[in-house]
């Protein structure tokens, strides 16, 4: 299970990063995408090296989650992914099982997320991929949950109320519902 605490020394700074991730999520929302956003912070230099938001509809590809988009951004900027060993990921919603596994592969240092992802969460909700509970060898990472979770949930609520308003549009079928957390999570 994702643990709370352990980030006390830089709570305020972390909230600043999460607000930037929320800004990314808002951008997704404005494009009609599931509102999830993230930023990757290089801890030693306090530099944001990448960011991303969900773009599954735009790409017609259900794997274009914020986390994977941000990882692509690092590579596109010619940065070596090995830098991720010194980076924290701030993401508005718990990484799904796919992203949680990908984040092990690229050896992220720490993940901080907002709301839980009851349907697909890979950092404690459905599976605990991050911590090595599964017998898969390789890098693991700690997770901290709940940072500005209410704000992340508020964005989801906006998204789903908009979806319902324009419901009779057969082609845009629940595109990217994969990251829907239940509003009652916390």
């Amino acid at each position: 299970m994702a643990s709370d605490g352990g980030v006390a020394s830089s709570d305020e700074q972390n909230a600043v990063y999460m607000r930037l991730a929320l800004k990314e999520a808002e951008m997704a929302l404005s494009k009609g995408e599931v509102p999830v956003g993230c930023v990757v912070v290089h801890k030693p230099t306090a530099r944001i090296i990448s960011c991303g938001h969900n773009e599954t509809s735009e790409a017609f590809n259900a794997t274009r989650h914020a986390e994977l988009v941000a990882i692509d951004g690092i590579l596109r900027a010619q940065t070596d992914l090995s830098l991720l060993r010194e980076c924290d990921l701030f993401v508005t919603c718990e990484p799904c099982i796919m992203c949680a596994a990908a984040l092990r592969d690229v050896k992220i240092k720490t993940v901080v997320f907002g709301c839980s992802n009851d349907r697909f969460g890979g950092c404690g909700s459905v599976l605990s991929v991050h911590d090595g509970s599964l017998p898969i060898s390789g890098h693991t990472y700690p997770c901290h949950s709940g940072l500005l979770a209410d704000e992340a949930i508020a964005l989801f609520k906006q998204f789903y109320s908009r979806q319902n308003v324009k419901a009779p549009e057969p082609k845009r079928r629940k595109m990217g519902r994969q990251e829907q957390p239940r509003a009652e999570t916390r």
Partner: protein
Amino acid sequence: MLEVVQEDHEFDLAGSARLDVLVSAIKPRQASQVVKDLSELLPLERAKLNHLKRIRSSQHPETGRLLQVLLSPPDMYHALDEAKRKEIVERYGLEPTVHAVPKLEPRTRAQFLSGGSAWPMIFHHSTSEEARRAARVIPEQDALDAIGFMRDALVDAETGRQQNGGRPTVGAVLVDPLGGCGGRRGRVVATASRERQKVRDEEPASMRDHPLHHAVMLCVQGVGRALAAGSRQEKVARKQEEDSAGGKLGKEREGKGSESLCSDADPPGGVVEVLSPEQYLCTGFDLYVTREPCLMCAMALVHSRVRRVIYGVRDTERGCLGSVTMLHTLTSLNHNYRVFEGVCADECRQSLSDRESKHAAVLP
């Protein structure tokens, strides 16, 4: 070709299948009100217990009919707002005690019966393993088709090896089983090697050896690319119709869109470049891959809603569709696909072997 399914076994209520929850006796006339209040205060789905009924009715040898209500796991109960908890305890005279119930949803009749002795459960026949097992016999023609498409995945693996300087590479193809033409049932809609080439041709060089560009991820990306192309084409066509102000023309075109997916423009034996935007993600498609997918790829295929995954050989260290775990049997996910193994296993093993014995590991 064997389906990868979970073993049928009873719930081990003394061990891993056990979960302690709080239950309490209630008066029969309170039952419906209790159920209503608890569904708001302590919803079963939040405790991941929607496979359990809220009320248990049993015969007590001395006191007659006994009605019990399932509250929640202890931590959830104690996390409840103090005032609210007190209110409900007093209203119904609750006396919570610990009781062991089955932690997981029953998947077989055996589990349903063994778990039901501890607490009444809900059994969804349609998703039950028994129902799936009944449909588990693959028609012979499907098995023959599968060999054909696994050969395509093997060709993709060979192309991948060439792309990767001789390093053994997993091969994968996505197949639309209903889109066949030229006497073949089904057609390949994306291959890993073609998408790998696209990345090399169109993306910056730093994207070249992307550690997450596993064969499966590349195939999914290939479908996305073809769908995006289809969507662009449709927009252009619609624009042209609007420009020529032909309401009639519009209707005509609509009919065309739903025609056979096969077109003369598709290269013979090749892969399609454009998919109709009517197609939603990879719904109904089958993925053929020479080696069992890892967790990331297995979940990507859940998100993409594929119909079946067929792999050649297992990956005992990282494979998550049979080896390390069975992601496809996790019924809490919104989509489940069927998994088959052992198609062209020897050829796949051969394809994954390091002929020059100089490469560190297979490229996933």
